């Protein structure tokens, strides 16, 4: 086998092109503003889930508090643009630096822990950050939030309407997908999979586990921060509510549904969960009287349990295995 054959086994390039075409043409035949808006949330969630899959699937670290980084990115953008009138793009960059540094410091301590303790620590951190968002009123606007976040603009062009924002978000999704795929199919990606396979053996070939896990943490957190910034510049408002423990759980659901160690799975998981939520919100009231959006929560829970019990590698792998996709390899 030569190098060409080795690389040709990657269907990623074609999949990316397909995605770009689908996403690019979507606003042309979907006119409903509600659906476009949903598409924006799918995109933002995809970015978040992508980061989480890299962290949980490749670096093998559980995070039950990922929404905190999402929130820090969001609040940094909001606070800097609203209170200091800073250029939004600069604020996004600062958000990235803040979250990355915080994650790096946290990672230094937290990666000494394993399994359960790590999960619990991330849970605790997530909740503390969420509570902090509500506590420091002068800075964050407290529980009622901070309105007046400006729109994003490049030169004279303002990302005003839903369609423009949809394209913006999905461009970011595609860029991050490419970056993730590049990292996964590289020396770093192999090192991570090695750590996952056997830490003892990874040590024996000179892989510094902590360093790589830390790098993945920082990468996943940068994704979350950007997602947060995109979120606030769309909603033009920030409050603590979307960054609570339930939000972190929802992210884990999306990652689990898609398949933890799968880049494409992250996209699929985010889309599946959000679309399901939307569908349930429309149809559940017809089946169960007095049902509200809160009742979709039950379905989250049931899905989560069913999937983890029956298909722990996630829906992507589970489904593909069940239709007996022949050359499917878990390397996506």
């Amino acid at each position, binding site marked *: 086998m030569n190098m060409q054959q080795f690389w040709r086994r990657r269907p990623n390039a074609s999949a990316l092109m397909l995605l770009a075409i689908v996403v690019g043409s979507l606003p042309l035949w979907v006119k409903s503003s509600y659906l476009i808006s949903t598409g924006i949330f799918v995109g933002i969630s995809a970015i978040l889930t992508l980061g989480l899959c890299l962290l949980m699937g490749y670096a093998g670290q559980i995070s039950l508090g990922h929404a905190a980084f999402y929130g820090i990115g969001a609040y940094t953008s909001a606070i800097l643009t609203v209170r200091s009138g800073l250029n939004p793009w600069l604020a996004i960059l600062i958000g990235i630096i803040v979250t990355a540094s915080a994650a790096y410091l946290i990672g230094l301590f937290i990666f000494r822990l394993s399994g359960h*303790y790590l999960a619990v620590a991330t849970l605790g951190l997530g909740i503390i950050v969420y*509570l902090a968002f509500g506590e420091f009123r002068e800075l964050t606007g407290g529980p009622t939030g901070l309105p007046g976040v400006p729109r994003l603009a490049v030169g004279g062009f303002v990302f005003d309407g839903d369609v423009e924002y949809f394209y913006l978000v999905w461009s970011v999704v595609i860029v991050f997908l490419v970056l993730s795929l590049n990292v996964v199919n590289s020396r770093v990606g192999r090192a991570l999979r090695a750590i996952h396979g056997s830490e003892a053996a990874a040590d024996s070939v000179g892989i510094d586990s902590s360093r790589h896990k830390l790098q993945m943490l920082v990468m996943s957190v940068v994704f979350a921060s950007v997602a947060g910034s995109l979120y606030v510049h769309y909603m033009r408002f920030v409050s603590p509510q979307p960054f609570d423990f339930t939000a972190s759980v929802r992210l884990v659901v999306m990652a689990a549904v898609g398949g933890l160690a799968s880049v494409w799975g992250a996209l699929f998981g985010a889309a599946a969960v959000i679309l399901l939520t939307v569908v349930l919100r429309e149809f559940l009231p017809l089946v169960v009287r007095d049902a509200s959006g809160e009742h979709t929560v039950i379905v989250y*829970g049931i899905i*989560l349990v069913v999937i*983890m019990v029956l298909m722990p590698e996630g829906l992507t792998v589970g489904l593909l295995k069940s239709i007996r996709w022949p050359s499917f390899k878990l390397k996506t």
Partner: protein
Amino acid sequence: MHNYGIGDYLQLILSGISTGSIYVLIALGIVMIYNVTGVINLAQGEYTMLGAMFAVTYYSWRVPLLLAFLASVLTVTLIGMLIERLTVNPVRSASAVTLIIITVGVSITIRGIALLVWGSTPYFLPEFTGGAPFSILGAVMSRQRLWIVGTAGLVLLLLYYLLDRTLLGKALRACAINRQAASLMGVGPAQMSLLAFALSAALGAVAGIVIAPLTLVTYDMGLMLGLKGFVAAVIGGLTSAPGAVVGGLLLGVLESLSAGLISSGLKDAIAFLVLLVVILALSKKVVGRLKGRRMTK
């Protein structure tokens, strides 16, 4: 900063002890399940909520309070066993991540079903005995707090008796210490797992019923309680029952003191701050123990 008298401090500490007792019960449930099955049950708080809810429901059907209490504990115990059979038993060999996610899923599902069945309006349970709040040395406390501490104490005694003096309890402990050896001795891990879940559900339910009169009973009251009970268990080392007792009481008192003396907004945050401090402090020891030979010794 106004002057606090002995009475104020005492009040904070005593109310902290009573809240702490709740955390102790929840923490014990978590420790038990973890010891016997290795699962971290993040859904533990939901048993507390269910206990309170069922008690309220039975009481509203004009069942006398004591019977409602027992019936509720029984109901929740059965639910706990059902959950074990459905979600934990089939995947006992799954990875830690998978198991934790499953318990999170269970917790969400229970909360959602509770919302469906009972709605989002808060419910009330009367105090077990009527009467004016009593006072000790200037500290004024509701009588229910005595019930809380008393019930918790009684439950602890019963638990101790069960674990230490009965064959079943010893089997449970054996399983917790060494699952393989226990199964070789004829103790079935599946039955022990079921028993552990049953007992934990019961403990949680008791906690919920006993605190119900002092708080609003809502479908989502279990989340925070469960998480805090969890923190208490971790403070105690996650595998130790006496540790859970210390952890729960300590957490309750810390919470009460900081809420009273510093800021009430801090109340929820305290638990998690303590959690982080404890985890970091334990981390070297913990990593060494959990990772065993992997760590450079």
